[in-house]
């Protein structure tokens, strides 16, 4: 076994790194959007209940598993799980703790690179004088790797590689010299930027700087309790999901950081300190920035409409335009603060994703620290390039769904069962309380044993069979229509419409309506259709393909719009799934090789 001499420098450094792991882009972009979509103030109640019944217990579980594994030189979940139970399957369940980190890092570093790029564009004044549509179009152009917004060819790829190189360099400096230093710089700056923007947002005045409403209108909308939504299962599921994302649970990174804590040192207080720091950044700062500012300028209805496309759209397509209303200097400062805040939130999380991969290579394959960091960087580059190049083909969303959503729930569910029922709560409780600097309330014994595993099983089962429109009243023994985001519907590709073949010579309309316009734009043929519900759907294809409809034509779902040669999105989606399965199986093979190596040398 290699000598893994990674160590934390200080306890505060560990807590800041762990809080930085939890604080991510979701604290500022996902949480406020979830709150808006799930009843405003009423969302906070299920959110805090889920934090206490699922988040805090899982923090205890993950810190304990990490420190327990670390005592035996296991800094990643496969061998920590193997030490907790003799059953062979557990080390393969532990593979999720490496798989999720590489896969999430592959697309997360890409978003992180957007924030880096937007810091540059905000400082350079790129958005000055742009209207809202131009700022939105700028983002769309940025995502198209073949267009350049700065004159740098393949700009999105360049920023992605630079961002990944930065992550790799910090990781190669180790825990105390790299990750911890980054957290000690990033976390305070993030909080300062956050406070500056929150103060600007709260004191936004109608009639000043082009604002239509006071900043408090947004806060009022976000915090007015709507108790009726408390009985809606959708709100509870959204709250449970948010707790997962925000605390970086079910990922394997918390266990890895905690694996470098010695047996007699505290983990209970550390877990609480890092966990509540994340809640402060999310609930206090995260709720006070994008919603008050965007509602101040755009009004409640428009913001509800914009949040239906998620927080990323609001952050990157809208915020730069809103900052411009504050004048050129303040716009640059606010843009740098906002995207800088997102960058620090992102990098402290992506470093946490790199550490388990590095630790695995050092522990099991005797790699040096810098080589292990390069190994992580290279793997993420290979896995990340498809998300960058084929972003608009749905590859990014597939990675996010399977690794960033489903894997986390599955892994957390199994680890809660392993900890409370297989390893045993008696030993588990001892692991939590050994060396603790706080008295952990005894009620958590029962929550860990019964409540948390049941909640996690419920979250998993409901994710499998989630009904269309989240209408749980339609669920019956005779069957029901599934939500396109449910796991079963995803596997069956239910959301794929008439363009379900990998390769086709016709491209079909996915909606019914009337052709509003047919034109050519930037080497593409474009057909715009006004749907029956008055929304507009735009289809684009290369000039080499021929348009076979004209303005005023009535089209139904499945009617051909273009003829030529097409590779449909479903091809890219299925290929990305195959890639993820291949990655998971490859890690299983590596675990099996490492296991036999350890067995041969008598370490197991």
């Amino acid at each position, binding site marked *: 076994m290699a000598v893994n001499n990674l160590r934390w420098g200080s306890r505060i450094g560990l807590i800041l790194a762990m809080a930085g792991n939890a604080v991510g882009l979701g604290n500022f972009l996902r949480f406020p959007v979830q709150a808006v979509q799930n009843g405003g103030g009423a969302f906070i109640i299920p959110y805090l209940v889920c934090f206490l019944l699922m988040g805090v217990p899982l923090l205890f579980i993950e810190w304990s598993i990490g420190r327990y594994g670390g005592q035996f030189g296991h800094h990643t979940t496969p061998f920590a799980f193997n030490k907790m139970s003799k059953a062979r399957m557990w080390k393969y369940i532990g593979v999720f703790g490496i798989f999720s980190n590489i896969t999430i890092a592959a697309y997360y570093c890409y978003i992180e690179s957007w924030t880096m790029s937007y810091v540059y564009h905000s400082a350079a004044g790129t958005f000055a004088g742009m209207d809202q549509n131009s700022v939105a179009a700028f983002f769309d152009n940025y995502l198209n790797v073949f267009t350049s917004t700065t004159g740098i060819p393949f700009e999105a790829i360049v920023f992605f590689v630079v961002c990944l190189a930065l992550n790799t360099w910090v990781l190669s400096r180790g825990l105390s010299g790299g990750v911890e230093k980054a957290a000690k710089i990033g976390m305070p700056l993030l909080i300062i930027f956050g406070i500056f923007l929150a103060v600007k947002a709260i004191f936004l005045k109608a009639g000043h700087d082009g604002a239509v409403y006071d900043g408090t209108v947004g806060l009022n909308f976000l915090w007015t*309790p709507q108790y009726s939504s408390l009985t809606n299962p959708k709100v509870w599921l959204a709250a449970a999901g948010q707790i997962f994302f925000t605390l970086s649970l079910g990922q394997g990174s918390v266990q890895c950081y905690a694996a470098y804590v010695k047996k007699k040192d505290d983990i209970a207080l550390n877990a609480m300190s890092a966990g509540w720091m994340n809640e402060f950044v999310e609930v206090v700062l995260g709720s006070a920035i994008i919603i008050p500012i965007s509602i101040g300028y755009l009004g409640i209805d428009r913001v509800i409409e914009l949040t239906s496309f998620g927080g990323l759209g609001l952050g990157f397509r809208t915020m730069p335009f809103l900052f411009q209303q504050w004048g050129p200097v303040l716009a640059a400062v606010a843009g740098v603060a906002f995207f800088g805040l997102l960058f620090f939130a992102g990098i402290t999380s992506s470093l946490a994703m790199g550490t388990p991969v590095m630790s695995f290579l050092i522990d099991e394959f005797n790699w040096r620290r810098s080589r292990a960091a390069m190994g992580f960087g290279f793997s993420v580059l290979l896995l990340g390039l498809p998300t960058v190049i084929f972003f608009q083909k749905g590859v990014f969303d597939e990675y996010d769904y399977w690794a960033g959503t489903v894997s986390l729930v599955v892994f957390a569910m199994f680890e809660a069962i392993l900890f409370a029922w297989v390893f045993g709560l008696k030993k588990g409780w001892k692991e939590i309380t050994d060396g603790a600097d706080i008295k952990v309330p005894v009620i958590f014994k029962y929550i860990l044993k019964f409540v948390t595993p049941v909640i996690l099983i419920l979250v998993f089962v409901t994710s499998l069979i989630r009904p269309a429109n989240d209408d749980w009243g339609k669920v019956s023994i005779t069957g029901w229509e599934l939500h396109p985001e449910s796991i079963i519907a995803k596997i069956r590709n239910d959301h794929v419409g008439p363009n379900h073949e990998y390769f086709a010579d016709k491209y079909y309309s996915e909606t019914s309506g009337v052709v509003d316009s047919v034109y050519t734009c930037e080497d593409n043929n474009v057909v715009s259709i006004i749907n029956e519900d008055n929304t507009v759907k735009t289809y684009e294809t290369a000039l080499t393909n021929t348009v076979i409809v004209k303005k005023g034509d009535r089209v139904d779902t499945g009617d051909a719009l273009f003829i030529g040669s097409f590779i449909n999105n479903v091809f890219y989606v299925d290929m990305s799934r195959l890639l993820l399965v291949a990655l998971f199986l490859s890690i299983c093979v590596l675990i099996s090789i490492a296991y036999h190596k350890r067995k041969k040398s008598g370490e197991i």
Partner: protein
Amino acid sequence: MNTSALLFMIITQAIITGLMLYFFFKVLFAKPKVGINEDSYADNDEPAVKK
């Protein structure tokens, strides 16, 4: 802001900020453990132990 929103916001944020500060200061002022030769943190090592 209406009264219920204001109250709800202030109470929630005060609880979260209070707990965050409570736990953070508890860590800052935690007494060093007696009888442990080497803890998890390199900064606490004796100068001769540091590498």
